[in-house]
């Protein structure tokens, strides 16, 4: 199938210039490259602008509640290992309300992809600071002095929590992002793809990303090297940073069959 055939035909609700359009295109390109059967892919999301994406793709989708895309995706993948399960959402959904699930998804290492479209703002609720908003960003009525809280470091935290694939893409480079998504799907285990996806409505300053984003295909399998890189990272590097496959969950145990479930109750 061609990339455009992976679109469902439903018109996105996003603002003009939104980075998520490019992410949508990158997913369709990756699917085309993967020769993905549409019926065997499931896109699972939470709540927010970016979480509307599954409906725009010609595959199965699940648009759940705020912050819980990862558990829905993990439950689905464990139950149906035959499916290609991709969880997705925004920075508020994934790192704030869903932060606990992010940590445990990284360490559990279920074989799914998690794409976070990070625009450093809550767009759907009209422009509040998110966990990745700069400390001094004073454009929200909710935090008039700026959040005054250090931004969350998604890739470094993913590494510390045990993610076995860590990459960053940029919505201004959909072909590069498509390549990363391709690799993420191919990676056995939990693959975290952080995407800088600009919000022209609430953070027009992100237009500067175009000049600042730089390619750093570190692609190491050494966690110490990856940690050193990520701690020095300015947040605008793109590329595959870390790739170190380890046993995926669930571990398949050989069980004796068939078993009489009732035997244990007999006296």
């Amino acid at each position: 199938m061609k990339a455009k055939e992976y679109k469902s035909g439903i018109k996105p609700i996003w603002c003009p210039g939104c980075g998520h359009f490019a992410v949508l295109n990158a997913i369709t390109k990756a699917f085309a490259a993967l020769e993905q059967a549409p019926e065997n892919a499931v896109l699972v999301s939470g709540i927010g602008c970016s979480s509307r994406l599954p409906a725009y793709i010609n595959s199965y989708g699940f648009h759940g509640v705020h912050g819980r895309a990862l558990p829905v995706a993990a439950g689905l993948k464990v139950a149906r290992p035959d499916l290609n399960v991709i969880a997705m959402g925004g920075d508020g959904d994934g790192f704030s309300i869903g932060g606990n699930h992010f940590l445990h998804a990284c360490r559990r290492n279920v074989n799914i992809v998690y794409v976070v479209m990070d625009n450093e703002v809550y767009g759907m609720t009209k422009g509040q600071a998110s966990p990745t908003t700069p400390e001094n960003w004073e454009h929200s009525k909710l935090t008039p002095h700026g959040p005054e809280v250090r931004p969350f470091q998604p890739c470094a935290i993913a590494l510390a929590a045990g993610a076995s694939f860590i990459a960053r893409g940029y919505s201004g480079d959909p072909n590069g992002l498509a390549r990363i998504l391709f690799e993420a799907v191919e990676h056995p285990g939990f693959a975290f793809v952080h995407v800088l996806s600009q919000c022209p409505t609430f953070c027009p300053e992100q237009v500067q990303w175009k000049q600042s984003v730089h390619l750093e295909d570190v692609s190491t399998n050494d966690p110490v090297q990856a940690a050193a890189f990520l701690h020095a990272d300015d947040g605008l590097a793109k590329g595959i940073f870390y790739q170190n496959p380890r046993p995926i969950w669930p571990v398949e145990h050989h069980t004796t069959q068939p078993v009489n479930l009732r035997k244990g109750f007999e006296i």
Partner: protein
Amino acid sequence: MSSLTLAMVGSGGTGVVALGEMLLWAAAKQGLYGMLRKTFGPQIRGGESAAIVRLGSEVVANLGSDLELLMVLDWNNFQRFADEIPLTENTVLIQDLQAGERPPNLPEPRQTLTLDFLGLAKSLGSNHSNIVLLAYVASWLGCQPEVIEAAVRHRLKAHEQATVELAVAVASLGLKLSHDQTIPLQAPLQAPLQAVTPSSAKTLNSEKLWLANGNQLIGLGALEAGIRFVAAYPITPASDVLEWIAGQIETVGGHLVQAEDELAAVNMAIGAGFGGVPAMTATSGPGLALMTEAMGLAVASETPLVVVDVMRGGPSTGIPTKSEQSDFNLAVYGLHGDAPHVVLSALSVADCHFTAGWATQIASERQTLVILLSDQFLGQSSQIMPPLAKTDFSAHINEAHINQAQMADESPDGPQQSRYFRYLDTDSGISPLALPGQPGGMFTADGLEHNAAAIPSPKAGDHQQQLAKRLRKLDSLVDTDHWAELQGQGAILLICWGSLYQVSLEAQAQLRKKGIEIAVMGVRLLSPLPLQKIQQAMQQAEKTLVIEQNQQGQFAHYLRSFDLQNVNAEPFSVKHLDFKHLDFKQYCRSGPTLFTPVEIVAQVEALIFESKNDEGPQ
């Protein structure tokens, strides 16, 4: 039925819970029936604990009202259980010589026997006074020495040989003691029990009795009906539902995931259910509260989901180790928005198996949320029972035949792009479900309101259509025979739900001995409530009494919230309704003390007395 209730109390390390378990096991081996309730303080290990065992000649499904025998190895902390162990002047007390001072303000027991259980154990270099006491009491009951020894060996099977042999030797001292010092209880209690010892119990040869608690039986019912994915987060008293399943589910090709919290657990189950794998989670009150948002998602996205709530004392952390029926409101009303779903209650330890199977089937066939209410008493009380029959319940899904569901002409994207209508507005309200992997069925399940084609829509017409559809698909549930258990007929109708049903049946039997016939209704289908059937039963009685174990009368308020006078109850027509009959009295009180048959009998008698006074002046 003849029965005998024994309680065992001790502080940490005296092993009274093990004593109760061994006693129940030995009784089962002898062909007796019985039930064991364990009760603990909040300590993780040690601390005070107690076990109550009721043995009977027939199936014992509640703990009864009276305590015939109280066995105390240590009086320390007894007061913490005083509410739960109804010591009366009819109780015979057996205490260890070194049990310490009996607390003041307790009723004087009918007779007290002070024996040196610990001294006997120590004479062999053991501390297991509980095993001396086990052998002593079991022998008096009529258990054969080899059965008692087998109970000890069964209990200690994971231990070293020397430990086991020492325990067996300790038990023999208890056996000897029973010959020297008999328990001063009257023969009427002993005879029926001894009459069903193995020589006379034919059932033993044909089929083995079961020993199970309600939590395990929920697991069995769920797995037998087809649950193949369980997400778990530990919480008392629901953990052993999950632990039992964890030990079994891989053997039937399923998976259990320990989640990071209840929010994850319920969403994982929803993910699996979306994938077409019947899924469940189990929790208790605080966990159920955390799950309510996602339960709304299951309703809106029409994803099959079973959530088991093993209720404990609440609110907040409440009394985690003890029973209450106080999550009714949360289960029935706790969801945000208009979210029709199913709430079931298990009516006995054995019924946990049946109702879990039914819950699994309803969730799959109706593509919605089913909450199954059990409670700590049902969940953690072990009961001896005849083997349970397999049910016919199965997790059958109404799968989409995509060609029929494709409706090109009505596609909102225009005629050129045909689309599967996931949320098709059918007569039954149940829409054909495509599962991931099925070509042509692609759709995005959505918690956002959507139209029949699964496209997000805020339109009033779509909202009304989808709300009505999700409500309508539950309508026919009230026609099922499984909605309640109804026993007997009489001037009084006693309505209850959950674990109170078995206690009510015993109250009914006690009233019958007094010449009073009552009808007892145990409601299994709490929502949607079969109003016509309830109305019909109320019409056939003079008075109705609703009982439940929560302070606010949550179910009673719910029942009152329906305009029963205007429910058209076939075969009665409205003009023949006697409105007087549609009112009811309620008797509701909090846990954690269990309802007793005597307590219910007193309430029924009070209602009868009141009725007679009402009629008096006419």
